[in-house]
Structures are given as C-alpha cells and as structure tokens.
C-alpha cells in the first residue's frame, strides 16, 4: 500500500525566514511525486512534478527536491502570500493508478 507522510503538520514562519517541508513516501515503483498548493476554500493548485531521485524543480521562492525516500519543498525568504496548505502526492507505476495524497502541511507566514 502506498503511503505519504508530510511533516510538520503546521509551520509558522516570519517573513523572510527560510525553511523546508518534508514529504516521506513509500510506493512500489514511483511514477511521479507531485506538490500542490491549497488556499482556504479553494481546490488544490498543481505546483511541481518530480520523476527521479536527484531531480529539482523551482518556481519563484519554492524549490522541490526528490530522493528515493522523500521530497522536500524548500521555501526561500517566504512572504505572507506563500501562506497555504502544501500537499504532496505520489503516483505509482502499475497499470492504471491514481494519486495517493499526504495530509498536508499548513504554512503560515507572518509579516
């Protein structure tokens, strides 16, 4: 059974204080690891896909990295508008499969 564990559950940062969110996963044959951002009252919004260990993707202040067991979402010099819940999900190589999501990390960035 695929498993995705995100930590911490919640994170409070001051504006400009860099940090990282963790996503640990167990999957039989990783097809892709995905990061989403979700604002309150909205549907999740796709951020990144990572396919193999060592891969990195960047978007503005966010950088996602991948190893064989976990992924990190690094947030550099965050701003209040980065406040959101960040979701991690894995997609397995096995015929037709769908995503398994983690429970998310709620990030709050204070001015």
């Amino acid at each position, binding site marked *: 059974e695929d498993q995705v564990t995100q930590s911490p559950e919640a994170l409070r940062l001051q504006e400009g204080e860099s940090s990282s969110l963790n996503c640990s996963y167990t999957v039989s044959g990783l097809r*892709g690891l*995905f990061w989403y951002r979700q604002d309150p009252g909205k549907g*999740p*919004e796709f951020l990144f896909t990572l396919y193999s260990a060592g891969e990195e993707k960047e978007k503005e202040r966010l950088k996602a990295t991948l190893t064989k067991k976990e992924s990190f979402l690094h947030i550099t010099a965050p701003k209040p508008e980065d406040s959101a819940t960040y*979701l991690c999900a894995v997609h397995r190589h096995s015929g037709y499969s*769908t995503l398994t*999501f983690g429970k998310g990390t709620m990030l709050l960035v204070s001015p």
Partner: protein
Amino acid sequence: DAGITQSPRHKVTETGTPVTLRCHQTENHRYMYWYRQDPGHGLRLIHYSYGVKDTDKGEVSDGYSVSRSKTEDFLLTLESATSSQTSVYFCATTGDTNTGELFFGEGSRLTVL
C-alpha cells in the same frame, strides 16, 4: 484553468436523502475524478472516469455512485446520505492522459445533518 465548474457549492441535507453533485467541464477532458477532503485524512479518491460511460472505483467508493453520460458532465450521487459523508468534495481532471497533474474545481461543501 481547466474549465471545471462544480454545483452546488454548498449544500445542507438530512440523513437518508439522496444528493447529487455535478461537475461540468468545457474543455472536452477525458479523465475526471471525484475526491473528498476531510481533516486528518487528506484527499481521497471516490470514483474516476476515463471516458463516457467508463468509470471505476477509488479507495472510498462505498455509498457513492457516479455517472458520465456526456463528456462534459461527471455526476456524483449519494443514494442515501449519512453524517459520515459530510465533507468537501472536489472534482478534478488530468485532461486527456492519466498523469498526476490534477486540475481541481472549487469544491462542494456538503453537510449531512
């Protein structure tokens, strides 16, 4: 923007009543999904569709059924709503391929009293 519209956005109903949530898309997407999101559980797949009249179960399909008689509409039905089905329901699409890049609607908040 994947052109997904969900209705209703909010609904309060009573235990035992049938409820249908509608997902409408304007982009002719082949793959569509229904998820529910609950505190402490994250997003869980209920049902998905890979074409007109082609649907399959997800991990939490008990108590739910779906129909897709037209490409643009994917309906989720709770035949007899229970309090455990109080949740936020999201419709999503991956377009015409089975990738993990989901594009979500705005969600439908359902409360079952």
